[in-house]
């Protein structure tokens, strides 16, 4: 720190410090994003091997998800995610083994005990809310949670929900954000805009260039950030969460990003986009970008990062073995948890 506190000098503060983020936090995020990417890569491998029936990818969305995670008090604020949010679930505390068991439909899958397809992240302890696969059906649950905070007179708590730009066409999405606007509830709506809904380009899903434009019609601010810049995402998400927790109302936050892999292992993305377009976006890889930042700021070294990569690989290897060795549940658990005790 310098004695002189003129804005000019302040401007030269490293971005993460200016945002009040410690070096440890930044390095943890970098490692977490690398780990999430490694797990994703592994899942696609397992899918090709027929060991995971279904895979859906967060690759490209890691900064959007980790940036928001910094603004969430895990286990306190409620998180209502969608299938794209594996990196978010890991940022909030779920492990590679959790993810691999979920993907292989094994017992110990914390999301569903092997009942849901991969991508339905859930943990009551972490306040990550279970979702269906029905696009756009979940934001209203975040709004209902916020309504509960108000009904119970709880303050300093918020709900945050995540969805793609394609989901904004659903009636359920509209009813959710419309109600949040009417009652100015403590909810943050995060749109991970990757420009495609499976094969459909944003042009066919959203009538305006920016999803954030819709916020005005719902009586809340709409923010647009570069979803590949973790600091930009955090700054906006943090402001939105603070606004919500302090009772000032909801926010619609649009993170512009891109999905590197096909929609899922069932999709062939070359039917609707070019390899060039994908390559161009991979240039803006949010993980590489944070890595560069850390090196530029000398928060770490390339040697250390190489070591991390090796550690991550073996961590994922071990988790894979552990997951594969988990026996399948017996089908007599078929009738468990259908109803509770009245």
């Amino acid at each position: 720190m310098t004695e002189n506190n003129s804005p000019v000098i302040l401007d030269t503060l490293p971005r993460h410090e200016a945002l009040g983020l410690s070096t440890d936090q930044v390095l943890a995020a970098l490692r977490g994003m690398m780990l999430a990417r490694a797990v994703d890569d592994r899942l696609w491998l397992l899918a090709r091997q027929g060991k995971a029936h279904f895979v859906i990818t967060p690759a490209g969305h890691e900064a959007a998800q980790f940036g928001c995670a910094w603004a969430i008090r895990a286990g306190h604020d409620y998180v209502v995610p969608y299938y794209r949010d594996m990196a978010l679930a890991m940022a909030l505390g779920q492990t590679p083994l959790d993810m691999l068991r979920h993907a292989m439909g094994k017992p110990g899958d914390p999301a569903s005990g092997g009942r849901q397809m991969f991508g339905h992240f859930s943990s009551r302890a972490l306040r990550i809310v279970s979702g269906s696969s029905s696009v756009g059906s979940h934001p209203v649950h975040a709004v209902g949670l916020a309504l509960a905070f108000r009904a119970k007179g709880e303050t300093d708590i918020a709900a945050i929900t995540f969805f793609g730009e394609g989901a904004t066409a659903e009636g359920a999405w509209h009813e959710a954000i419309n109600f949040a606007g009417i009652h100015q509830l403590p909810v943050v709506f995060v749109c991970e805009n990757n420009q495609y809904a499976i094969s459909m380009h944003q042009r066919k899903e959203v009538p305006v260039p920016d999803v954030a434009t819709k916020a005005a019609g719902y009586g809340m601010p709409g923010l647009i950030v570069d979803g590949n810049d973790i600091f930009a995402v955090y700054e906006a998400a943090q402001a939105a969460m603070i606004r919500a927790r302090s009772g000032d109302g909801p926010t619609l936050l649009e993170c512009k990003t891109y999905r590197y892999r096909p929609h899922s292992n069932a999709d062939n993305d070359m039917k609707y986009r070019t390899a060039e377009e994908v390559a161009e976006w991979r240039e803006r890889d949010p993980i590489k970008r944070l890595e560069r930042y850390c090196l530029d700021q000398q928060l770490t070294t390339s040697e250390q990062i190489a070591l991390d990569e090796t550690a991550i690989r073996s961590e994922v290897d071990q988790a894979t073995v552990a997951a594969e060795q988990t026996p399948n549940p017996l089908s007599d658990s078929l009738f468990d948890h259908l109803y509770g005790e009245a």
Partner: protein
Amino acid sequence: MAHMTYIEAIRSAMLDAMTEDESVIVLGEDVALKGGVFLATEGLLERFGERRVIDTPIAEISVVGLAIGASLHGLKPVAEIQFADYILPAIDQILNEAALFRYRSNGDWHCPIVVRAPFGAGIHGGLYHSQSSEALFTSTPGLKVVIPSTPHDAKGLLIAAIRDPDPVIFFEHKQLYRTVRGEVPDGTYTVPIGKAAIARSGTDLSLFTYGLMTHYSLSAAEQIAQEGINVEVIDLRTLYPLDKAAILESVRRTGKALIVHEDNLTGGIGGEIGALIAEHAFEYLDGPVRRLASPDVPPVAFNDDLEMGYMLNPAKIMAAIRDLAAY
């Protein structure tokens, strides 16, 4: 004990449940300031304030979806759908979300909500204020469907539904609201979900029904008793899960089964009941399993003649009883 109408019993259930348990809230279109279009929630806003009695926009997906979300944080929301005819926009939230929360999360989450909706014809409601929508909710594991026919059961079952840890769809026949009165205990009590009631015991024939048709069937049974036909009337009260034991026990005694409902004949709950009997009481049957229901046309034309032509009544029920008894 108080003598009250069906809708007063519904109101009293919500009033007592909200008084007893702070986590109970009520939400829906026009439920707060107006007290509901049928006045089922009248007085609740004044008593409990706008944090617990919430007017929602005209947006049924959110009416149910908000209730689900609120229930995840420990509230027990009672959502009102203004007419059963308008529950359809919310059906994804009910069948794909509420009903499956517990199962899909392997018991980690659950969803204790109640969705109330007035249903049924006979008040000149035309095609969109007359529907019987129960059949859409009786094929989804995870859900419960309750349809009381008396003020006593209405209050006891609504309180049971509110205390139930899982989602309950609660249909109230709008013709009963002000036409039926009965003794209702003060304070909170419950009537068990999943148990049918013998509304009238008899020996010659078992008649299975619910809602308004319970009353039509009872009056038919009383009149036909003079012809020496002794009908047992079973008020199902819960349509999902059905009280199989009670259904089979009765038909095994009487040997004959007649199912009566206001819903269309084809696809109504009568099919499920008829099939249960044909499979599990086959050896006891002295005659075909009969169903008497509304004809397979949309419920129900506005014009008086058409409405009467569509609706069942005690005379039509008596004819069906006579016919089966004579078999």
